[in-house]
């Protein structure tokens, strides 16, 4: 297999909770949120990788670490073989960020309301000192707008963000990321604020750009139903760790971790015949806080299949198929079935 474009090994981010003066006086123990807790994954050239999970599972933190917006507590990240977790030099960091860009969830607040689209798109060029003259930059902006199908570009240049619809705004964010010709884009819930029909349009466009622009996406989402269409690899994240990963089809058709199975049961069915009855959602409760991660398997308090061993031993990654692993003591033994009670 080819060398991965991006590699993360034991990637970890712990946040210290600041203590008040009185807590310090009383000698209260320092609390640590283990937002990302030793994550490994590989992303291959032009093969999208998506991370799914509930809110609070640490998926956005992973994205921010990859952009080096946050510094990892431990672990390493490699981009094309180069260790980027060690870069501390501003110039090198800037060069790295030119190759990786980010798109945010909320297109309404990601664009400055007081800047025109032209200014918004010119800013990354100015920062990275690209283009010698205003004309040259204008050409590049035109090209970027055409890439995201905002045509004719002249019409959009002088607009303000409030004059665009939600889908158009998200396409401007995409153009802003694309204008630097990055290899890699971290897309943090890029379509979750958009309407169903617009969502499909933006996802189609993002998919087309993979081949047109040679770009790879790291797609962060809570909506597992869009991943099959959009990505090649899926990582399911729970409480700071990737509990199952593999090729999209494998993970979705034969989920091996009880958490993945629960997520799939919870997906609403667009078919009244199937979805009518009360579905048995196997897990109860809500995701625990990152300050207090359960011992052994982090999922055991909510797991319907938990046995004694799960409380004591943190499960290893078990191979359940080609390129498909799950972190569960019983991976491969638990059958997946959607039960519907009438």
């Amino acid at each position, binding site marked *: 297999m080819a060398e991965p474009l991006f590699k993360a090994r034991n990637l970890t981010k712990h946040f210290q909770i600041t203590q008040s003066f009185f807590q310090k006086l009383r000698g209260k123990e320092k609390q640590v949120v283990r937002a990302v807790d030793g994550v490994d994954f590989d992303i291959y050239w032009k093969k999208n990788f998506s991370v799914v999970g*509930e*809110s609070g599972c640490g998926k956005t933190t992973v994205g921010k670490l990859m952009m080096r917006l946050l510094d990892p507590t431990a672990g390493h990240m490699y981009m094309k073989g180069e260790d980027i977790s060690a870069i501390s030099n501003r110039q090198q960091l800037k060069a790295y960020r030119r190759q990786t860009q980010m798109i945010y969830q909320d297109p309404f607040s990601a664009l400055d309301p007081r*800047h*025109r689209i*032209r*200014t918004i798109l010119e800013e990354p060029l100015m920062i990275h000192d690209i283009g010698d003259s205003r004309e040259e930059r204008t050409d590049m902006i035109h090209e970027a707008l055409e890439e995201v*199908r905002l*045509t*004719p570009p002249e*019409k959009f*240049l*002088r*607009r303000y963000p409030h*004059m665009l*619809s*939600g*889908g*158009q705004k998200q396409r401007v964010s995409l153009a802003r990321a694309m204008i630097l010709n990055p290899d890699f884009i971290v897309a943090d819930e890029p379509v979750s604020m958009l*309407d*169903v*029909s*617009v*969502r*499909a*349009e933006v*996802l*189609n466009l993002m*998919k087309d750009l993979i081949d047109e622009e040679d770009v790879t996406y790291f797609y962060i989402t*809570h*909506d*597992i*139903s*869009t991943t*099959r*269409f959009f990505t090649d690899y899926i990582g399911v994240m729970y409480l700071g760790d990737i509990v199952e990963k593999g090729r999209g*089809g494998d993970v*979705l058709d034969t989920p091996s971790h009880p958490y993945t199975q*629960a*997520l*799939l*049961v*919870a*997906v*609403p*069915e*667009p*078919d*009244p*015949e199937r*979805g*009518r*009855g*009360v*579905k048995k*959602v196997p*897990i*109860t409760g*809500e995701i625990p806080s990152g300050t207090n991660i359960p011992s052994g398997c982090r999922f055991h308090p909510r797991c319907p299949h938990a046995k004694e061993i799960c409380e004591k031993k943190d499960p290893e990654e078990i191979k359940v198929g080609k390129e498909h692993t799950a972190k569960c003591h019983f991976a491969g033994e638990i059958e997946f079935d959607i039960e519907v009670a009438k």
Partner: protein
Amino acid sequence: MDSKMVLEVDELCTHYLTTDGEVMALDDASFKLHRGESIGIAGESGCGKSTLAFSLLNQVQPPGQIMSGSIDLDGIQVADLTEKEARKKIRWKKVSMVFQGAMEIMTPVYTVGHQMVEPLKYHKGIEGKKARDICERYLELVNLDGSIFDRYPHELSGGQKQRVIIATALLLEPDLVILDEPTTALDVVVEARIMNDLKRLRRELDISMIFITHDLSILAEVSDNLAIMYAGWIVEFGSSKDIYKDPKHPYTEKLMAAIPDIRTDIERLEYIPGVPPNLINPPAGCRFHPRCHKAMEGCKELEPETYDVGGVRVKCHLYSEDEEIAESEEAQYETAYDDEAAAEAYEGELGKEEIEEPDEIMEE
């Protein structure tokens, strides 16, 4: 159907009278709701779903106004009520509503209980221990512990808060509960569990529900009937089984196709090009024609009637008997969506706002 009628809406129009013009947010909406039934209302943002819900409560915010039509709620003419009467007679008692983003609705400085007993106090004069007992019973009904009564909103998770709101909406045993995007902000697992609870409650308490959402896949699970809205019109109304199996209106067809399927590999998702029209000046004829893949010549001028197609009411010229329109079909059937033309149309809408200034102004 022989069960009792709870709600009958007839040719309801609600417009917003803004300084820019009249926004025709809801036009000519008619439907009936029987006891114990549920209706799902779906459409893109800005199609008038929420306006419809607020109209049903007679709570349209100014400059909005119910222009014409009637809402018959169990014998009460809702549109004719004054604000005071509406508050006394229908809200909470007959209809209650769970709003979009219910998480922010609770006041952070009072306990959950303090806020929950308010409708009981106001409508029935029940207070103290008795009110507490009732509230605890309803909290348990939505799978919450009775002790939540004494907690503050910030101590609860999003899912728990949403359940409290649902319990409060049920307190006075209304006939009808309107849920406006009840689970949009929640995680899938929590969403599925709340949806399960709602399905159960509807059966146990025999109440009618109206679900409003843009997510058609959720509606498939909870609604008996489906109303698809586009630009202030109900374009298709019928049993959800029929509509999911065989959508009649081109808009519904596209909307259904846009839902990604988790079970099969697909190369491309379907979508509806263009943007919904500005309702101050909606397109002439059928409001959907500029984005419609089946648009005909006649669609540009004539507003379609509502036709009954196998029990489903569809507002579309495709089902017209009128020969003139049907003949025009061939001529225009191929009119694929034209990106440029739509951009042009959109431009026109924005025309007023567009300020042509020399670029240099933005230079620093």
